[in-house]
């Protein structure tokens, strides 16, 4: 049987075999604990470090560092036993969320090699480096670069490259060599069956019948194997050997347009970043123009030399291509960041992605035509980038008679051009609606009101500690809640004017008929 590779993917499997303990050492928690335990003996002799988590009713070791491993500790050992063996063992509680965050950060940093990256929890990352390894001096060069970057940050790791996810995963964890070029079958044969990503039960069952290595099952008849151990076993085997394709699901959507720039010497100044950005945008422009697209959502990814990645996204209200516009957008975005961009030791890779593109017909370059709309959109984009999308809004009419729902505020970048105000005007004129206030309070404020007759307007009321004497009133206009919502009782709205000429919109929540003491609220003010 020859192994037929269905796809031409090349998978790099990265295994951070001591992720939890490396995290604790990197955060300096281990040193703190050691110093607290024995301030006198600051011996550099390393003490073992372990992470324990609860399994059933027993605390067991779930991660150990290299020292602990040398001293004979093993994963899965009960914590009490481990403590008995090594009284100087430092133990930390398992923190799966912190590990996941760290893994996510590392995966972000790996984005510099390829956009096709999948997290492989709890402690692995898969990269599809097919077609991009030559940019880093071949597969060996890429692996060496990745390893040196992560080693410098203090992570232990194992890397394997193979034609399938299964083979790369198996080799990274169980294989002897760091790299593997081809010939999955031959290389995988001596590895234990656990390397096929099987559950522990199946592995134990196979071991009972004397099958311990992948080579043991490659040439066995398939039907009896499937009957006894299920089809999952054969599928995993086929996937590892490349007989069945296993797709890699990238953790971030792959952008349709990407431009990037690498630097031998990192850059740190904001002006430099913006200058690079404009250069990247002009490179994107020609690609966008060729397909007749414009960018609606853009992302700027700044890769720091120490592995951290800053991602800054910006949206636009119409598809744009112009590099100057894109630069202006990100200039506002950078200026408006709550915590300014921290370049650390500088950025050595800047990437500009168009996350969402929309068709945008080529523009007639203006003879001073009516480009007011475009001009306004540009202003809205600038303001939204600096202040936030939800702070720049337009009013959109809604088909509702409930005052607070009649006029919705929608981000100006996405608001429709023909908001339904004409429909509202037609409705107002036919229904003979009474006046609506100029300014509406977000939430009606309770007032103390005194009404003369049960269904009449208030005689005087107190709002925000000031007493207002009503001299003129108009109403009531009764507004009922929608029957399908629990809007509570009907509201009787009055437009009242006080002695000084202030005009308010008040309502009585509920009728005297139904409740003993209906509450009064102030909902808005008129000019």
């Amino acid at each position: 049987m020859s192994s037929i590779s269905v796809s031409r993917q090349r998978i790099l499997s990265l295994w951070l075999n001591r992720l939890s303990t490396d995290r604790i050492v990197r955060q300096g928690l281990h040193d703190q604990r050691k110093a607290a335990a024995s301030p006198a003996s600051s011996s550099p002799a390393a003490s073992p470090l372990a992470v324990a988590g609860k399994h059933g009713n027993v605390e067991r070791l779930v991660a150990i560092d290299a020292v602990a491993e040398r001293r004979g500790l093993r994963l899965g050992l009960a914590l009490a036993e481990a403590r008995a063996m090594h009284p100087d063992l430092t133990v930390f509680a398992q923190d799966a969320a912190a590990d996941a965050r760290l893994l996510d950060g590392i995966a972000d940093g790996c984005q510099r090699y390829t956009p096709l990256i999948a997290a492989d929890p709890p402690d692995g990352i898969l990269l599809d480096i097919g077609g991009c390894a030559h940019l880093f001096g071949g597969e060996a060069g890429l692996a060496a670069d990745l390893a040196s970057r992560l080693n410098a940050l203090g992570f232990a790791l194992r890397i394997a490259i193979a034609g399938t996810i299964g083979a790369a995963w198996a080799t990274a964890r169980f294989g002897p060599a760091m790299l593997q070029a081809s010939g999955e079958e031959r290389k995988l044969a001596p590895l234990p069956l656990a390397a096929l990503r099987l559950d522990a039960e199946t592995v134990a069952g196979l071991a009972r019948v004397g099958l311990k290595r992948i080579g043991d099952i490659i040439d066995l008849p398939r039907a009896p194997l499937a009957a006894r151990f299920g089809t999952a076993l054969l599928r995993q085997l086929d996937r590892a050997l490349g007989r069945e394709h296993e797709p890699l699901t990238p953790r971030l959507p792959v952008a349709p347009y990407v431009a990037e720039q690498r630097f031998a010497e990192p850059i740190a100044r904001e002006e430099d970043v913006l200058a690079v950005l404009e250069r990247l945008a002009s490179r994107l422009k020609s690609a966008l123009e060729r397909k007749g697209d414009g960018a609606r959502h853009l992302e700027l990814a700044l890769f720091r030399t120490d592995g951290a990645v800053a991602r800054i996204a910006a949206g636009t209200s119409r598809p744009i291509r112009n590099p100057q516009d894109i630069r202006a957008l990100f200039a506002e975005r950078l200026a408006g960041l709550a915590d300014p961009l921290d370049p650390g030791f500088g950025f050595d890779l800047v990437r500009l992605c168009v996350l969402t593109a929309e068709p945008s017909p080529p523009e007639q370059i203006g003879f001073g035509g009516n480009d007011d709309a475009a001009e306004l959109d540009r202003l809205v984009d600038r303001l939204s980038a600096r202040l936030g999308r939800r702070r720049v809004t337009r009013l959109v009419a809604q088909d509702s008679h409930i005052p607070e729902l009649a006029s919705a505020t929608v981000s100006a970048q996405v608001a429709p051009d023909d908001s339904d105000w004409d429909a509202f005007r037609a409705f107002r004129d036919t229904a003979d609606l009474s006046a609506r206030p100029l300014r509406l309070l977000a939430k009606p404020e309770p007032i103390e009101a005194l009404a003369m007759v049960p269904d009449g307007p208030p005689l005087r009321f107190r709002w925000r500690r000031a007493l207002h004497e009503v001299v003129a009133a108009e109403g009531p206009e009764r507004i009922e809640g929608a029957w399908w919502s629990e809007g509570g009782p009907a509201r009787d709205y009055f437009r009242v004017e006080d002695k000084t000429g202030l005009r308010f919109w008040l309502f009585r929540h509920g009728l005297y008929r139904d409740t003993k003491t209906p509450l009064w609220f102030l909902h808005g003010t008129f000019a």
Partner: protein
Amino acid sequence: MLVSPPLLVSDAPSEGKNLHPLRQAIRACEASGARGEADVIPLGVPAIDDVLGGGLICGALHEIAAPREPDIAAASGFVLAFAAHASRKAALWIAEDMALIESGAPHGPGLDALGLAPERLVMVAAAKSREVLWAMEEALRCRAVSVVIGELRGDHAVDLVATRRLSLAATSSGALAFLLRSTPPSQASAAATRWIVGPAPSMAPHGPGPPCFAVELKRNRRGPLGAWMLEYRREQHFRLASAHPEPLAQPALDRPHRAARVA
């Protein structure tokens, strides 16, 4: 570009005589050009329009303050009445978050009733007064905007430099800039006019009628000051509020029945 010097030298004796009227003509052109560019929005009240030199001048900053905090609705109504009569381009209302929470956010149907089509309005909420001023300046640089309203609470952060910047931005774009304040400001400002606008009791005999304003012009770069009571109606713009009677109803005999109108 240089004109060849010999020619100038030969004309030297008559230079003063020829150039003087030329200079005057240029100056006249410039002056009239400047005046022509600066549109005005008349209030429709001759007494006030004369004082302002034709009406509220576009391409300038106007400061409008409410006498007390609760009167801000009247002051905003006065500002929006001008916005409604400015050209049909977009209007921006930039306000501090606190102002929108305390005094209420603009309500579309209410704006429409005042004459400002809600489609024209872009609302901007800013966390700080500094951001309000920044956004106003940005908006004033945009050609597609005809009115920029900046609403500030309290009496802070707007010094002479800030108002000067806003005035210059407004002059260069020709847009109408308003600084709407909840209390009368105490600092000096570079605004073209400064108004104190509060509500006035309405003149209608039955119920609250159209909006009425007690308007005081506190500062005017072009002329004298004054105080008036105004009534605003959407179609007629402003008029002096006096004890005028409501138009009387037609005699009952020809008046179409309401039910018939609906049918």
